[in-house]
């Protein structure tokens, strides 16, 4: 099973420190993100009503989230009427227990998996492994991650941090442990690598009796689930097994097929820069003698209702996991996906993880600061999530504390530790800015002592001066010059 987990991750700056200095990783990420970034811009530019589609997507999601209680019940009724069974899971443990129980009930000890963020979020593969069940990832990139005992570093392209040479080595070394070995003399050409994966996976598809999937969308009016993908491996998992278990976050609902239409236009262009993705699979319950004869839908909350309770933060639940924000993010490009310590990396991960998991851990408390607030993520988001707004909101939660919802109950968070010096500095600055005279005294002191200013700073200031020269303090601040040259006749200040 996948060897890497996110438990006990260090803070973002610590994790990013390694990545920034890894030249291979920087090269891989730069090449991949810049390529897809440019393609996406073209794919979006050719749609004349993109702004309207974006606004429609935002409004559909906001409407659905506002009436989530109603649509979830409607979905359960539709799925049940179509021959499926709906299970409700409040958290990751409950979801894992349900899926494990369902797999065991079939008597099988293997499952094939469609690429799914939700099952990674709850650590399903590890939970199944603990019960003696092998879960095989069948998405090409997920296969690379699983065989490499690695962690995904991107929502759409989980192995974005690997180059072809690294992938060849992983296939040659690991495939035989899991099933059909890689062919002798495998090279790093894309066609050969794809063929090796194809042959290896085909064996799994034909043998599997149980499939596990997530879903991109769930249509409440008919109880239909939708998976959008490029490879066709997902469709194999969705159609060949006798039993299909889909694990989906409760926010993935859209009310109607007409609503779905908006996202089927914006998602492929935002994620893979395609006008339309190669495979869109939809299924509604079960159909006699066609596809899985047993269908289970496991709806997971796992922090979503708590997130929904926050007026500013709830917009993160609009996310359709396109990963456009990752591809355009200068911080992601340099820090890499692993530094975010979550299956949700990049800007969206920086606002989603601390809400779904809370801000107690070192990594979650550091994520809201993993951004220069440049706003590129908000610009490209197809459902207009104002990521910088939520980042600042979460920073406030960390430094000021306040009321949040955890496990459905209101709790009061204390201000986080480790911000004492910053808090004192902010308070002192605020006081000075409230007293222009004091500010002026400080400015003059800085100007008069400028000969003695060091060129590098000790302590926390080193974080600046190690790579950047300090600005030279001028002989006099502007306000002194103004008063010398323009003083007296105007500029009294104060309310006019």
């Amino acid at each position, binding site marked *: 099973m996948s060897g890497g987990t996110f438990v006990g991750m260090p803070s973002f700056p610590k994790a990013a420190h390694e990545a920034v200095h890894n030249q291979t990783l920087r090269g891989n990420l730069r090449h991949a993100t810049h390529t897809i970034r440019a393609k996406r811009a073209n794919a979006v530019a050719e749609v004349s009503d993109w702004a309207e589609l974006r606004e429609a997507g935002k409004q559909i999601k906001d409407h659905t989230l506002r009436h989530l209680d109603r649509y979830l019940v409607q979905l359960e009724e539709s799925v049940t009427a179509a021959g499926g069974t709906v299970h409700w899971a409040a958290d990751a443990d409950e979801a894992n227990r349900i899926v494990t129980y369902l797999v065991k009930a079939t008597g099988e000890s293997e499952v094939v998996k469609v690429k799914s963020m939700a099952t990674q979020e709850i650590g399903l593969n590890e939970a199944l492994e603990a019960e003696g069940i092998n879960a095989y990832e069948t998405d090409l990139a997920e296969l690379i991650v699983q065989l490499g005992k690695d962690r995904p570093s991107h929502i759409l392209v989980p192995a974005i941090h690997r180059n072809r040479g690294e992938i060849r080595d992983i296939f040659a070394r690991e495939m035989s442990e899991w099933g059909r070995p890689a062919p002798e003399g495998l090279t790093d050409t894309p066609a050969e690598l794809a063929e090796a994966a194809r042959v290896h996976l085909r064996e799994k598809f034909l043998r599997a009796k149980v499939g596990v999937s997530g879903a991109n969308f769930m249509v409440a009016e008919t109880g239909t689930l939708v998976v959008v993908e490029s490879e066709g491996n997902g469709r194999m998992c969705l159609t060949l097994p006798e039993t299909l278990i889909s694990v989906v976050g409760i926010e993935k609902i859209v009310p109607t097929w007409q609503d779905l239409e908006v996202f089927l236009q914006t998602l492929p262009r935002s994620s893979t820069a395609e006008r339309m993705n190669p495979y869109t699979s939809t299924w509604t319950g079960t159909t006699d003698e066609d596809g899985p004869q047993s269908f289970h839908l496991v709806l997971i909350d796992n922090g979503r209702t708590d997130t929904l309770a926050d007026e500013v933060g709830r917009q993160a639940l609009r996310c359709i996991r396109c990963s456009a924000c990752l591809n355009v993010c200068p911080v992601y490009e340099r820090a890499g996906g692993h530094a975010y310590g979550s299956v949700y990396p990049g800007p969206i991960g920086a606002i989603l993880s601390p809400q779904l998991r809370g801000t107690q851990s070192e990594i979650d408390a550091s994520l809201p600061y993993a951004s220069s607030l440049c706003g590129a993520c908000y610009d490209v988001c197809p459902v207009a999530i104002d990521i910088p707004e939520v980042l600042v909101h979460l920073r406030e939660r960390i430094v000021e504390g306040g009321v949040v919802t955890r496990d459905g109950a209101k709790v009061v968070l204390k201000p986080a530790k480790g911000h004492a010096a910053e808090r004192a500095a902010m308070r002192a600055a605020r006081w000075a800015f409230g007293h222009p005279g004091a500010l002026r005294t400080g400015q003059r002191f800085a100007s008069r002592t400028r000969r003695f200013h060091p060129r590098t700073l000790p302590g926390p200031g080193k974080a600046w001066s190690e790579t950047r020269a300090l600005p030279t303090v001028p002989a006099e601040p502007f306000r002194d010059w*103004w008063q010398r040259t323009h003083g007296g006749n105007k500029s009294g200040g104060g309310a006019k």
Partner: protein
Amino acid sequence: MRVALFLTCVNDTLYPDTGRAVVKLLTRLGVDVDFPMAQTCCGQAHYNTGYRHQAEPMARHFSDVFGGYEAIVTPSGSCGAMVRELYPRMGERARAEGRGDTLAATLAPVVPKTYELTEFLVDVLGVTDVGAYYPHTVTYHPTCHGLRSLGLGDRPRRLLQSVKGLELKELPGADECCGFGGTFAVKNSDVSAAMGADKVRNAESTGAEVLCAADNSCLMHIGGTMTRLRTDMRPVHIAEILASTEEEPLS
């Protein structure tokens, strides 16, 4: 037209040349400029670091100081965006916290009449040729808040293209953040420095002598990186280029 210069605390303390340039430029264009001495800071650093409640009295102070002017001009994209984009949001949040409309009402008057310098020149004064002379090759970095929050678009470039003697070079990856980001520069210094170094390398590849931007905070980070990387380029604020004339060239 009587206009207040909102210089920003960073420019007042560290970059008075930029302030003098704005005064010189606007005066040349027939604008009556005042510098209200009671001005301090718009509260952006506090707000963006999570201290919104501490930023509120600073925003109220800003409104007290500047509320009486016809227009408020600032040579900073990010401080301009603080007033225009985030002051209304502070008002909304106060309302959502059950504190009524007082803050929103106090801040409302300054929001629509605050202009970033290049906006003021192009939109309010209606000029792109400001009569400037600057015989150097320049590449322009559009800073994030000017670009994406205020939507400055091609205004700075149009102004630079009209400067006599100035040769404008395209900056590769111009839209990408330089990595400053306020406290981000210190809290995530590794990533910030890597972004800064990439920005400087892109600027160097243009062969320009000068990297120009409309925000000195970003230029402090980029310029500091240039010094450490021993680059021949220098950072210059757009106001100083636009203020430069044949009679009084920027030294």
